[in-house]
């Protein structure tokens, strides 16, 4: 099954935090993507990976976490008891506790936007295309294509070595 999620190219992130602000706007004041500065001036965004084998879904005692038809891991707020289990097992520490409602909150890949055929807000806004929404295989394929194109381009512009008489 082709599952789509948000991939992050940290070499393009300029730490402008547009994704955070966009996410916060779409999710009533809570941002489920965070930008970290990991070396002086270099940064990357981190969000839910919607893992193939998602520990959060596996451990949820009330089945509040589930997958929708696109494969995104969503949370049913009415079932969540705020036990924090998902936050503990997540290797990225993604699900957070909403302190007011005492339930968890996490990235839903902008379910409401996807229903209208739009991209998640963070991807839509990223000024440098550091965030890409897509299928893993497609993205890998595109990167390979780009690499090949670049190599061909380089070979074309390189000094023309006469191939005859090699």
């Amino acid at each position, binding site marked *: 099954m082709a599952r789509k999620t948000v991939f992050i190219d940290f070499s*393009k992130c*300029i*730490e*402008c*935090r*547009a994704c*955070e*602000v*966009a996410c*916060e*706007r779409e999710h009533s*004041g809570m941002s489920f993507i965070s930008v970290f500065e990991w070396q*002086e*001036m*270099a940064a990357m965004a981190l969000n839910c990976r919607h893992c193939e084998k998602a520990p959060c879904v596996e451990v949820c005692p009330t089945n509040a976490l589930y997958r929708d038809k696109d494969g995104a891991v969503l949370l049913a707020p009415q079932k969540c008891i705020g036990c924090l289990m998902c936050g503990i097992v997540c290797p990225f520490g993604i699900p957070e506790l909403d302190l007011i409602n005492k339930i968890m909150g996490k990235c839903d890949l902008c379910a409401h936007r996807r229903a209208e055929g739009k991209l998640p807000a963070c991807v*839509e*806004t*990223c*000024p*440098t*295309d550091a965030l890409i929404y897509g299928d893993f295989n497609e993205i890998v394929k595109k990167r390979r294509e780009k690499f090949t194109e*670049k190599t061909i*381009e380089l070979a074309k512009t390189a000094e023309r070595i006469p191939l005859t008489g090699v």
Partner: protein
Amino acid sequence: MSERLVPVVCPYCGVGCRLYIRSVDGYPVGIEYAKDIPNISNELGKLCPKGNAVVEYLLAKDRLKRPLKAKEQGKFVEISWSEAIKEVAERLKAYAKDDPNQLMFFGSARTFNEPNYLVQKLARMLGTNNVDHCARLCHAPTVTGLKAVFGAGAMTNTYKDIEEANVIFIIGHNYAETHPVGFRYVLKAKERGAKVIVADPRFTRTAWFADIFLQHYPGSDIALINGLIHVIIKERLYDEKFVRERCVGFDEVVAAVEKFTPEFVEKVTGVPAELIIEAARTFATAGKGVITWAMGLTQHTHGTENVKLLGTLAAICGYQGKEGAGCSPMRGQNNVQGACDMAALPNVFPGYQAVTDPEKRKFFEEFWGVELSGEVGLTTVEAAYAADKGKVKAYYVMGENPVISEANANHVMHTLEKLEFMVVQDIVPTPTMEYADIVLPAAAMLENEGSLTNTERRVQWSFQAVKPPGEARPDWWILSEVGKAIGFDKTGSGGFVYNDAADVLREINACTPQYRGITPERLKENLAGLHWPCPSEDHPGTRVLYKEKFLTPSGKANLAAVPEYKGPVEMPDEEYPFLLTTHRYVGMYHTATMTMRSCALKKRWPEPLAEIHPDDAVKLGIKSGDWVKVVTRRGAYPIKAKVTRAVKKGVIAVPWHWGANVLTNDALDPVAKIPETKACACNVAKITEEEARKLMEKLPPLIPKIEVVRG
């Protein structure tokens, strides 16, 4: 209930991004990305954090809703619009009768072209050329410098050309942080194989993406650029054909850069000689190159010379008049270009027609039907000093905040206290408003409509998305009412009778050659806008300037020779051993009047941090997070320290959004009259939090509490 999606232009930086505002019954509920409009400046509707938070400041609790009149400083009573307009008109008229040069008008780069046209029309019809706006504090040298070299002071190319360039030279400009959406085009070029050269005193986010990074000292730009030209000439890498056919003054340039050998430049700028040679070779041999700069280059006493040298550098490499090349000054606010085009400047009429030129003056005298002054007016900083001496007695400030934005802010506040009459027209209370006699509540940009000109000369129409709060009115309406009340109540171009913003734009079409074909009808139809010059209604607009000839009288580029190296006016000494420079944050915008009223932005960029090199920090015993006091000859400023290798040893970098201009130097560039905000001598000392709080009380509050009293 009616939900609408209205196309607007982002009210923040100069990129001029398009977006949709979602509104219900005239009340903003969200935004949508403009993915479906082709050829706009923000490809695929991309937005930066400020663009994403655009709705929040509209809903600020302290928006101005009714006209106010001061009882004493900072205390106001509510009055009606008719009273306010009557009082403003009468006072202005009285000063104008006495001596029109007692008046000073401020246009605004944050509002549309139409109010800027009207504010300068009002000033000039009252008989004075004392009108200016904040471009004086950011890009005045760009206008004067580029005009001297190429004949006009605007970006010579577009974003498309940055994307198509093979080399991009970014100097004095933190592109990634100030214009994230514009930086997209640099990264796209880089992906294609273009080289990026960055010159900046700080290791910025932009520098992270540089192939060659030149970290020079603040204010040593002349030496650096001359050094690059020296290498290019010495190694004969320049475009001989272009220089022969389209430039004059090359021999003088050769003589002027003689002494700027890479070794000499290394001593002055602190950039290794090999890097200068490598940068020069990379830049000159790329075939297509773009130079972009911003305030790091212009806010100096030698800003005009800096810009002239950059123009020269671009010209000798042949990077003019073709696609994928050019000079791109990046404007900070969404309508700096437009406010300049509309002549909210003391020396020109709309379309850069000099006030001293009798022919142009005659045209406008006939057009507006009054006698006009041919004397060049005062600039912002000059006005402050004239007011101090009592020569200027009244300010009309539209959407400006000089208390925070002008260099040597303590002096500005002292001046504002001395004024006899001050009108402030704005959307929220600003520190400047505390000194006002009359406050006129304006509608924010998204609450009214009009045209805007972005940094690449693209004129776009922004539609009204939401209703203004209370009795707030559009800027053009307020100015037209004031104009009518003063007595300019004729219809046509001789008066201030307008039905809407489109009416004003039609008048602009009639008197501004570059805007002749940019009619409201065309703009409303074509959301991507038009690039000026657009001389007639069937003209498609101009993407690249100077394809055949330059706009100088001879038609050739006047190469500039600057043989003398000048550093900042104030260099470090024993008493003030550090060099202070200012910078900005991606999520904050200018004097923070709008961004500090947005939760999402305030949360992420809550306070300023002074950047200091680890070696200096050790000497002074400062750790990250400590409170320090930065002191210059003009003032003291408490701030938290951030120890980082992003700055050079001996340099302190402070963001200016929170009022750091109490420190900066107001020494002026002799041509462009821009103050040297980017470099001055300072001292740093560790202080306790208590001392910091005490110092802070003396500073103007960013978000002042305007008291409205009864009676």
